[in-house]
């Protein structure tokens, strides 16, 4: 039974697309047939983060409107055979997305893929609402920062009221997980940033993972290589473990850098 996972946050710039790319690549690396869909109509970016921007011909909107077949719009990743990308339109506006159209495309994708990852746009408009509407699971990407946590709380409210699972009688509610990104263990330890526990206490949903602030994330975006496909980094390991938890593995949450300061950190201590 395939699963639809929405990667959402409310607030922009917290790492939704980076996380959607890393999670879908991680699922594909584990051998699951995975597709990642861009719901940000008019502001397409998943294609760049996945490194397939030059191969976009048809898109999600073309498929919804019947101008192209789904198989024409799907871009097969050249690095991971289990991974496909469904880009969105850069020129249409978001009214081109309809609930029926999205539902039909997702049903067709369910026949072929184990995991369907929906990369939500920021905000709570149509694109964001449709990205979450059919979801079975939600990954709430949150930074340890007041506006991001507040927006995530708002998204939790929408996940529990404005989705198919919320509307259907007897359906299990959406399984929402917290993915804390851009976490800085040192600043958190110094009391300058909320701790993982602080955020968990406020949002009260299970923790999927903690992604440390890492230069590997910008490098990944620069090169169009999802974080888990690039060189080994703390962020890549954290994403890989989050993906394993998403598929049901029990892995203890380790916060890189918190218990094991690096060589330079030990020398320079907490003066920086």
């Amino acid at each position: 039974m395939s699963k639809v996972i929405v990667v959402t946050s409310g607030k922009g710039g917290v790492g939704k697309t980076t996380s959607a790319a890393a999670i879908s690549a991680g699922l594909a690396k584990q051998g699951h047939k995975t597709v990642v869909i861009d719901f940000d109509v008019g502001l397409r970016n998943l294609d760049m983060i996945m490194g397939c921007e030059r191969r976009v011909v048809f898109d999600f909107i073309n498929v919804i409107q019947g101008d192209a077949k789904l198989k024409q719009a799907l871009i097969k990743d050249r690095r991971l055979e289990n991974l496909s990308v469904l880009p969105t339109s850069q020129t249409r506006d978001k009214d081109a997305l309809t609930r029926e159209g999205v539902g039909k495309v997702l049903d067709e994708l369910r026949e072929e893929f184990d995991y369907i990852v929906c990369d939500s746009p920021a905000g709570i408009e149509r694109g964001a609402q449709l990205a979450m509407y059919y979801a079975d699971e939600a990954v709430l990407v949150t930074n340890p920062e007041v506006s991001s946590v507040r927006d995530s709380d708002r998204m939790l409210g929408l996940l529990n009221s404005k989705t198919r699972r919320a509307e259907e009688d007897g359906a299990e509610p959406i399984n929402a997980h917290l993915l804390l990104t851009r976490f800085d263990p040192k600043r958190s330890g110094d009391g300058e940033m909320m701790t993982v526990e602080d955020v968990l206490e406020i949002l009260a949903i299970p923790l999927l993972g903690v992604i440390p602030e890492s230069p590997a994330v910008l490098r990944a975006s620069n090169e169009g290589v999802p974080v888990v496909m690039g060189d080994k980094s703390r962020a890549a390991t954290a994403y890989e473990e989050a993906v394993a938890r998403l598929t049901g593995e029990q892995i203890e949450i380790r916060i890189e850098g918190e218990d094991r300061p690096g060589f330079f950190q030990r020398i320079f201590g907490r003066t920086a």
Partner: protein
Amino acid sequence: MSMFGFNFRSRKAKSAQTAKDRLQILLAHERGTEGSGSGPDYLPLLQRDILAAIKKHVHVEGDAVDIRMEREDDISSIEINIDLLKQAARAD
């Protein structure tokens, strides 16, 4: 900056340059098509026209035409595949 034989800047400079190059190629294509409905958006229409032209002469399925585009630094290419196997199979 080079120390102990390592060049600390080269790695970062390399990925930043990659980012800039990718953006320049992409934006050169996108800026030319802003709001005009042309650019990759003309491809569904092109596909329909090609299909109509082929149908005048041979019977083909509605999904027999597959169009792909590859954008490179200097040139873009459109690859058009027309699936005539279904036609041949029916003729038998």
